[in-house]
C-alpha cells in the first residue's frame, strides 16, 4: 500500500505544479462565477428581498456552471501528451491516480469558490445566519461535482467537441445535489435545522467518492485505446 500512497502523493504534487503554472485556467471559471452571480441582480431587479429569496439557487447554479467550464482540464492535457497512458501503465490500480486527479481538481477549483462564497452571499443579500450552511453545502457538494465530473470527462476526453456534451451528460446527474444544497440553505434562512439535507449531501459525497473512480477507470479505458 505504501506504493499506492507514494504514487498518489506524486501525482498530487505534479498536478498542483502543472496547475499553478496555468493560472488563467484557474482564474477564468472564478471570474465567470462572479460575473454570472452579478448578472442576476441586473436581470431580476436589485430588490433585497428578491435577491435573498433566490440567492441559494443562484449561487449553486452558477457554481455548477462554472465547474463545467474547468472540468475538461482534468484529463485533457494528460490525454494529449500521453501522460494518461503512462498512468494506466503504473503498477498500482488506476483508481489511485484517478482519486489524486479528483483531489487536485477539487483543491484548484473548489477551494477558491469556498473562499469567495461569503462575497457571493453578500452580493445577493443572503441573511448572515445562513452563511455557515451555504459554506457547508459548498464544502460537501463541490467534491461531488469533481468526482462525478471526472466520469463525464473520462468519457468525453477523446472527443474534440466535448464541452457542450459534458454539460448534457453531467448536469442531469447533479440535479439532486442542487436540490438538497438549496433546500439546506433555505432551511437555514427560515431558521430551521438544515441537518437533514446536509446529511444527505454527506451521503452523496461518500457514494460518489467511492464509486466514481471505478466508472472513471472504465471511461478512460474506452477513451484511451
Amino acid at each position, binding site marked *: 500500500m505504501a506504493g499506492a500512497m507514494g504514487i498518489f502523493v506524486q501525482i498530487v504534487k505534479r498536478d498542483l505544479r502543472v496547475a499553478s503554472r496555468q493560472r488563467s485556467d484557474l482564474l477564468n471559471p472564478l471570474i465567470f462565477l462572479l460575473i454570472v452571480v452579478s448578472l442576476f441582480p441586473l436581470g431580476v431587479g436589485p430588490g433585497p428581498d428578491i435577491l435573498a429569496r433566490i440567492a441559494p439557487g443562484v449561487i449553486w447554479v452558477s457554481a455548477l456552471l462554472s465547474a463545467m467550464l474547468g472540468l475538461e482540464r482534468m484529463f485533457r492535457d494528460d490525454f494529449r501528451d500521453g501522460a494518461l497512458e503512462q498512468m494506466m501503465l503504473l503498477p498500482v490500480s488506476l483508481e489511485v491516480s484517478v482519486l489524486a486527479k479528483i483531489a487536485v481538481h477539487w483543491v484548484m477549483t473548489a477551494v477558491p469558490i469556498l473562499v469567495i462564497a461569503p462575497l457571493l452571499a453578500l452580493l445577493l443579500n443572503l441573511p448572515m445566519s445562513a452563511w455557515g450552511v451555504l459554506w457547508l453545502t459548498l464544502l460537501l457538494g463541490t467534491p461531488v461535482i469533481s468526482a462525478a465530473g471526472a*466520469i463525464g470527462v473520462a*468519457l*468525453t476526453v*477523446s*472527443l474534440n*467537441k*466535448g464541452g457542450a*456534451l459534458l454539460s*448534457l*451528460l453531467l*448536469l*442531469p*446527474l447533479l*440535479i*439532486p445535489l442542487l*436540490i*438538497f444544497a438549496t*433546500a439546506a440553505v433555505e432551511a437555514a434562512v427560515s431558521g430551521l435545522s438544515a441537518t437533514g439535507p446536509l446529511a*444527505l449531501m454527506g451521503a*452523496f459525497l461518500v457514494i460518489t467518492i467511492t*464509486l466514481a473512480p471505478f*466508472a472513471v477507470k*472504465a*471511461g478512460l479505458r*474506452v*477513451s484511451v*485505446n
Partner: protein
Amino acid sequence: MWRWLHPYAKSEATFALNQKILPWFLIPGLLLTAVGLVWGLAYAPPDYQQGESYRIIFVHVPAAIWSMGFYVSMAIAGLIALVWQIRTAELAVLAIAPVGAALTFISLFTGAVWGQPMWGTWWVWDARLTSQLILLFLYLGVMALYVAFEDERAGGKAASILALVGVINIPIIHYSVYWWNTLHQQSTITKVITRFESPSIAPEMLWPLVVNIFAFMGLAAALVIMRLNNELLRREIHRPWAQKVLNSGDKENSNAV
C-alpha cells in the same frame, strides 16, 4: 450466466433469436393496442370528476411506466456489454435508447395535454413531471454520447457506461425531486407492487389500462428488436450470413430489413 449469454455474442445467433421472438412481441402488441385503445377511448366509463378527458391515461400511464422500464433494461444491456464484453449488448443499448426516449416524450406530451384541462396549466414543476424530464435528458445524453464518437465500438462502450451511471442515479433523482415538490397525484397502479395496496381505480377503467400497459410493452419491445436487427445487419453487411439474409428476402426476414 456466461454459458447462457455466450452464444449471443455472435451477431448471427442474436439475429436468429430476434427473428424468432419478434412475432411474439409484435403481434400481441398490435392486437392489444387495438383492443386497449378502443376499449379505453370508446367503451370505458367517463370519470365522475374529470369527464372524458381522463381517457388520456390510457396512453399516458403505459408510456410513463415503460419509459422507466426501458431505461433499466438499457442499463442491464450496458452491464452485460461491459462485464462480458459482448458487442451485441452494446448494440442493444443503442437500440433501446431512442425507443425509451420516445416513450418518455410521449408521457411528457400527454401529461401536458392532460394537465391543461385538469390543473389549468401545460406544465408545472411537479416532482414526477420533473423527474420524467430529467429521464428524457438522461436518454438524450446516452444518444448524444454515442453519436459523438467516430469509432462506433468506443461510442457503444461509452454509452453503456453512461447508462449504468444513470441507472444508479435514477432512484436518487426520483426521490430527491419527490421531496422537493409534489402536485401530481399518487400512483394508482404501481402501488400494488411497491406498497401492497389495492389500486384506487375502478375495475372498468383498470382493465383497459392493464391491456394498454402490456400493449405498449409488446410494441416497444418489438421496435427495439427490429432496430437491433437492422443495426446488426448494417454492421455486418459484408458477412456471409447477412448477405444470405438480405438476398433471401423471404417473408420472415422482410419485416426486419
